[in-house]
């Protein structure tokens, strides 16, 4: 899952990036309004954490702009302004949630998780696809009651496939969800993660659950299939 943090206070921004990365998100971050808009337009983010007081373009203008461009990305506003009218204005302009500074990081994380889940039509942090249970908050995968040990990247790949179970997810989409804008991984990194995932799933008794749609991408299937069309 990939997030965008637009916050001009360096200490807060860097800590948010670290905390969200620890929580398993791929995170892009900027402290500038216009640069934030550029990121938000280009990247495929699962949620944007947006400060209101920003240099070069304020958060509300940024929000109005991306909403005018029909960008459906969930936006969580992060601000020190606590008047009811400020909150109402932010929400009316298309924000999905509002967190007042100072906040408890766990609460912010929980709210971000809700927004991300909501984007994929999920109401809880547990996703189940044919016996594979994924706990997005605890970052745990269980297959038939057995815990499955995955790296953070493998988890992120499985999570995105699970959230869009039954759909083909392109290689680029998977890549975008697990890496931030600035990272430069190798070109076949997605295939490597998929291969590792398949091996671990097979070892846990869930063989042939990740199907390949050649030229398109990958799909998580509810039932094992040898078919690789």
């Amino acid at each position, binding site marked *: 899952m990939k997030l965008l943090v637009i916050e001009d*206070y360096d*200490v*807060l921004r*860097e*800590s*948010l990036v*670290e*905390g969200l990365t*620890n929580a398993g998100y791929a995170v892009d971050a900027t402290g500038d309004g216009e640069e934030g808009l550029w990121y938000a337009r280009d990247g495929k983010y699962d949620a944007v954490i947006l400060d209101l007081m920003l240099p070069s373009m304020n958060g509300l203008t940024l929000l109005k702009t991306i909403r005018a461009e029909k960008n459906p990305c969930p936006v969580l506003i*992060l601000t*020190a*302004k*606590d*008047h*009811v009218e400020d909150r109402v204005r932010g929400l009316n302009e298309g924000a999905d949630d509002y967190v*007042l*500074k*100072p*906040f*408890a*990081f*766990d609460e*912010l994380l929980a709210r971000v998780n809700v927004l991300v889940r909501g984007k994929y039509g999920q109401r809880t942090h547990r996703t189940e696809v044919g016996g594979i249970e994924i706990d997005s908050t605890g970052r745990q995968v269980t297959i038939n009651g057995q815990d499955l040990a995955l790296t953070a990247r493998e988890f992120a790949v499985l999570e995105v496939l699970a959230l869009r179970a039954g759909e083909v997810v392109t290689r680029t989409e998977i890549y975008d969800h697990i890496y931030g804008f600035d990272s430069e991984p190798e070109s076949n990194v997605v295939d490597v993660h998929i291969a590792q995932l398949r091996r671990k799933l097979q070892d846990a008794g869930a063989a042939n659950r990740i199907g390949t749609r050649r030229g398109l991408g990958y799909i998580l299937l509810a039932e094992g299939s040898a078919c690789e069309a």
Partner: protein
Amino acid sequence: MRSLKADLTTAAVGTAAVVLCAASLALYGAARVYLVSELDQRVAAVTQLVASSIELENGRLEMEFEGLHITELSPVAGKGFFEITLDDQLLVRTPHDAGMPPGLDGAPPDRACWIDLGGGTWARGYVRAWSLPDATGPRMRVSLAVDASGPLAALNALAVSLIAVGTVALAVLVLAMRLVVARSLRPVIALGQSLRARETGGLADDMDTAGVTEELRPVIAEVNVLLARVRQTLDRERAFSANAAHELRTPLAGLLTTLEVAQSSPKLHPDAKPTLDRCLTVSRQLKQMVDALMHLARLENGRDRYLPAEIDLADEANKTWEQIRKQSTDEKHFEIRQQTAELAPAWAEPLLVRLVLRNVLCNAAHHVDDGGWVAITSASDPAGASITIENTGSLVSEDDVTRVFEPFWRGDAARSLTGLNAGLGLSLARRAAERCGGSITASSQAGGNFKVVISLPSPSGHI
């Protein structure tokens, strides 16, 4: 202490008394002059009449008293005296056995004078002396003294009446002056009351000059200038607190997030955890303080919408107390005396009421001494409902009790410098209670009991 009322009454009554005395003296003096001169005229006229009836005819002295009808000459002892002498030889004397009254003997002729007839009787005397028929002839002398008791008694009666009337007039004057002065001072007293009422937070409006006397207008104008200055200062102070709290939010968010992220980081060294935990505790206390300050600023500028409803103050107090007890980690043992069984209906915003109760009850639970007690008592009357929260073990002195609602004031500053006890709780409680149209008062009882009374308006008239 000097009293304006007493000063004004004394001055007015004193002046009136002096004027009354002067007028009475003048009246008495005039009456005396009139009565005495009337008597003198009569005495002189009688003497002249007697003198004119004495003639020397052919060397013989002729006196024609018959037909004169001189009542003053009737021989009544002690009432008067009459004597005619010729060359110092007595011709007539009435009463015939009386001696010449002292004073009349050597009295100058043709002038009335006071004669003491003895026995407290005073008379006016008159002497006429001449020679018959010319300057070389025999010397005649008529001496007359007429009892002046009548006019003197009249004068005494007048004096008594004047004193009596003066005394009554003075008493009436004192009462009247007190009323007039009290009436005149009413605007001054009203001004004082109006100023006192402002002490409890009513600084929003200027004082009204309608119906105020001319003399007080400049005073009120000056008070209004002063009020405006106080308002400005308060506004600046509030704006400063609000801005300071607001500006603290972003760095505090950075601090908290950094610490929380570090605390949950898988790379965290176990030795660093206790330090990080302490830093987090302090940062969270700072957050609470900033939250409380922002809350206070919001209540003070009154911009948030006020959403009142009917509540049961007793029930709210009980629920809040239960919550506090559940969350309390305090090892202290104390007795709780709850007298909150009856309904105490009030009209206020529930969230604000809970804020008030929470702060006051937390304060009581925090400050009560080990082995002491906390009493929560509710009451209601047609005007509204009230809740009284009292605890033992107070360190607040009677002099300091009015300061407990000031932001950042703490009775035990040295003991508990924590975010929760930053001295904002009761300030918040007061602002919230006032926002609800109620009030909150604190008192320090003898024996170290601290008592807070929260009063809220009645729901009647609202629902």
